[in-house]
């Protein structure tokens, strides 16, 4: 009986797909099929979900390879190097000194200097060969150096200085009791929360009491964050249902 119910259910689903595929097109039906394969995980792990999951991982990996090759490596590295090489072997360059040809660079035109990032990029692949893997550290060093530098200044200016500057607010705004109260509560919350993160001294006595007040402000922020996270996740589900109802089944127009 149970098997008959399963068979009947699968036939019904297949019929819906066939009908939708006939009326809405193969592309949308394929997308809907993959969507439902992944949703099937809600019942339990099954071959349809595993198939879709592995297909997704493979498609993603292949997509990232092609995307980064055609949108970064070719226009930012290959094309300028090729243009430099062609330009330098052309007529009219015989009078230029060799150091000018090789090292001459200006903003946005780095000529043969671009061989360096090309080389370091290729060196990353030495990670596949254990004996040569140490060479990939040179490429990593460039990335780490650049990001350490720009993140240090970015956080300092954008998060520390600007935020501290804005935190110097008056506690009394004439004619605006609510605004004044909000500024007081805000400053109290900011200071007590910062004190909570001060771990150089044990949280006892006045420091402990201050940190405890800070914990309550932090809990309010975590609760607000949880509420917004719920909203975000539900939104993603709404989006998929809008696709299934509109693009696939054509029941509703969004």
């Amino acid at each position: 009986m149970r098997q008959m119910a399963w068979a009947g259910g699968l036939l019904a689903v297949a019929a819906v797909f066939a009908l939708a595929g006939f009326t809405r097109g193969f592309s949308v039906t394929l997308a809907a099929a993959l969507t439902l394969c992944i949703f099937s995980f809600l019942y339990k792990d099954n071959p349809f979900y595993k198939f879709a999951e592995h297909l997704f991982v493979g498609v993603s990996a292949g997509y990232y390879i092609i995307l980064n090759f055609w949108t970064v490596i070719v226009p930012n590295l290959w094309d300028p190097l090729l243009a430099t090489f062609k330009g330098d072997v052309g007529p009219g360059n015989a009078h230029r000194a060799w150091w000018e040809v090789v090292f001459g660079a200006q903003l946005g035109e780095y000529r043969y200097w671009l061989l360096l990032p090309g080389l370091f990029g290729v060196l990353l692949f030495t990670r596949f060969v254990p004996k040569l893997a140490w060479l990939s550290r040179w490429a990593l060093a460039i990335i780490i150096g650049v990001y350490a530098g720009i993140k240090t200044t970015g956080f300092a200016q954008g998060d520390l200085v600007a935020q501290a500057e804005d935190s110097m607010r008056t506690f009394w705004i004439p004619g605006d009791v609510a605004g004044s109260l909000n500024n007081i509560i805000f400053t109290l919350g900011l200071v007590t929360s910062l004190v909570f993160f001060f771990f150089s001294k044990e949280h006892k006595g006045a420091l402990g009491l201050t940190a405890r007040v800070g914990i309550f402000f932090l809990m309010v922020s975590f609760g607000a964050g949880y509420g917004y996270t719920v909203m975000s996740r539900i939104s993603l589900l709404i989006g998929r249902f809008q696709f299934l109802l509109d693009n696939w089944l054509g029941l509703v127009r969004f």
Partner: protein
Amino acid sequence: MAGAGRFEGFDRRWLFLVVWILVMVPLVRPLMLPLVVTPPAQAYHDAIEAIPDGSNVLLSADYDPGALPELVPMTKTTLRRLFSKRCKVVVTCLWNGGPGVVDQAVRSVAEGEFHLTDGEDFAHLGYKAGNESVMVLMGQGFANAFPNDYRGRPTAAMPIMQRVRDYGSIAMLVSISAGYPGTKEWVQQVQARFHVRMVSGCTAVSAPEYYPYLRSGQLLGLLGGMAGAAEYERVTGLTGPATRGMDAQSLAHVFVAVCIIAGNVLQWTRRRAAAGGARGQP
């Protein structure tokens, strides 16, 4: 207590089914609950409207298909307002998975609704790897960082790129972002360094952490999640997919709230029963 015991080993798939129904039904039969426009969304709208007509705008759509329902509606609504003001818009995408969906959103408005010309009235520069380093690199010229556009065509020769050259030539930076890299990095690397006017639309997960930027004035407006997108649709006089999703959002939120309360009531009931049972033992 027999009533509390019935929830022991509760199969969570029943919860999944309730969520499925509560989200699906309002999409088919809307409840038409009234939407309120919050101050951050109003501020976003006011900042966009304050841009002088015909200005240059950089819109960085940093998201992928995982954030479509929240961010595509606000991208489209923003583009509609900008194109209505005859702004020249350059679009970038710093997320791997995003350029395709961003391009569809941009073209559906630019070409589909406003019949604008790619390369003259707008440009989609596509994706570039590097996160923050791309943002700083663009400071020396957008075409410097993006030699080709989304379709592989050279950007240096495009008419729009002759006027939208760098951060000094834009009236506004609009960041529509799903996480890292996104609004936070744009604030740190571009707004703080180059002092450009900036607004942000983001996923609801990210929104709470951008409120400090809104308060400090680093962001002039903020749209948070699908609710923010719906509010922006409302304030611009539209009823789009974000607005239509808010009824389902409402019911789902109520259900999650009921789950939290019910789960804790069940726990307290069980604890009291256990304590009462322990007291009753000889």
